[in-house]
């Protein structure tokens, strides 16, 4: 196995431990956030984003790494985003947490995983026709928020950190 594959496995094992210990790979936590009853998954995600955005931008600024921005295609991002959200609420897991849920004994996650494999295969079959339309609607390329606002990424990062800390204060106050 190549170094890259070993790094993937090692990173995945740590990611799995953290998903399990963060209590996010649970149907109740995922659906609980959508019902605004339990914001555990947002505490987890937003903290990860906060730490990650600072570190990645520092490393990118000193050219140790390069960023890898996914293209913005409004039609695909919005329609795909809505479809994902609808399915997410019903299955109660996202792709990453489904495997962690299965491994911690939530055996019903297997049906979600099988469904996702079928969904992936169905997408592969329809891709040639989507490529001509939805995947071209509103194609803005690899844009970032600081790029379109024409400001330093650090200003945007500072804004997000203030916003996220504000959300955490609300979550803690409401006890969700």
């Amino acid at each position, binding site marked *: 196995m190549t170094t890259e594959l070993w790094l993937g496995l090692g990173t995945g094992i740590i*990611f799995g431990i953290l998903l399990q210990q963060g209590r996010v790979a649970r149907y109740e936590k995922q659906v609980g956030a959508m019902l605004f009853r339990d914001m555990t998954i947002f505490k987890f995600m937003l*903290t990860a984003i906060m730490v990650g955005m600072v570190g990645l931008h520092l490393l990118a600024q000193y050219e140790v790494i390069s960023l890898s921005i996914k293209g913005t295609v409004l039609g695909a991002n919005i329609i795909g985003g809505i479809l994902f959200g609808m*399915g997410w609420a019903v299955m109660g897991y*996202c792709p990453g947490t*489904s495997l962690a849920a299965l491994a911690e004994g939530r055996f019903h996650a297997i049906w979600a995983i099988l469904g996702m494999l079928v969904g992936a295969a169905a997408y592969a079959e329809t891709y040639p026709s989507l490529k001509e339309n939805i995947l071209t609607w509103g194609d803005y390329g690899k844009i970032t928020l600081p790029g379109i606002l024409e400001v330093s990424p650090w200003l945007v990062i500072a804004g997000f950190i203030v916003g996220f800390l504000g959300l955490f204060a609300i979550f803690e106050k409401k006890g969700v």
Partner: protein
Amino acid sequence: MNNESRWRPYIAGALVGVLAIASVWATTKYSGKGQYLGASTTFVRAAGLAEEKVAPEHVAGNAYYTKEKVKVDWQMMLVIGVALGAGAAALVRKDFKAEMVPPIWKERFGSSMALRALFAFLGGAVAMFGARLAGGCPSGHGLSGIMQLSVSGLIAMAGFFGAGVIVANLLYRKSGKGGA
């Protein structure tokens, strides 16, 4: 809620942030290409690998499978690792709990395993179709995308959560109790 469980998601989340940075750094240094956390493309590659067993020509001729490359890659190893790590942590911390139907689902829709299986399967299929159309899932768009301040990550995550809130409320609003 005791202090430990109160801070748990924040601490685990912060460590995921460190992991995301370390992963991009290490893969850039040791394999020449920085790898960002993600999960949904693995389902495409896994579906392709399964289809290859029965119809190899069909997979070879499919534009999407050709584009995403049907093979075991860094992200597939990551997803396998997630299952191993979560399983090990659950066993060590004695959190492992066999569950066939989620408790809040049971309270609302009854204890039928077949009903839960059907909805989880259909939900999974719709969600993955959407994730591939959007170009990522809550890991690839939500974590990695927003960490990089990408517009696509923010739009996709808003779509994920906005639609999730509407559907979850349609499913559960009248139940009155349950949840976390």
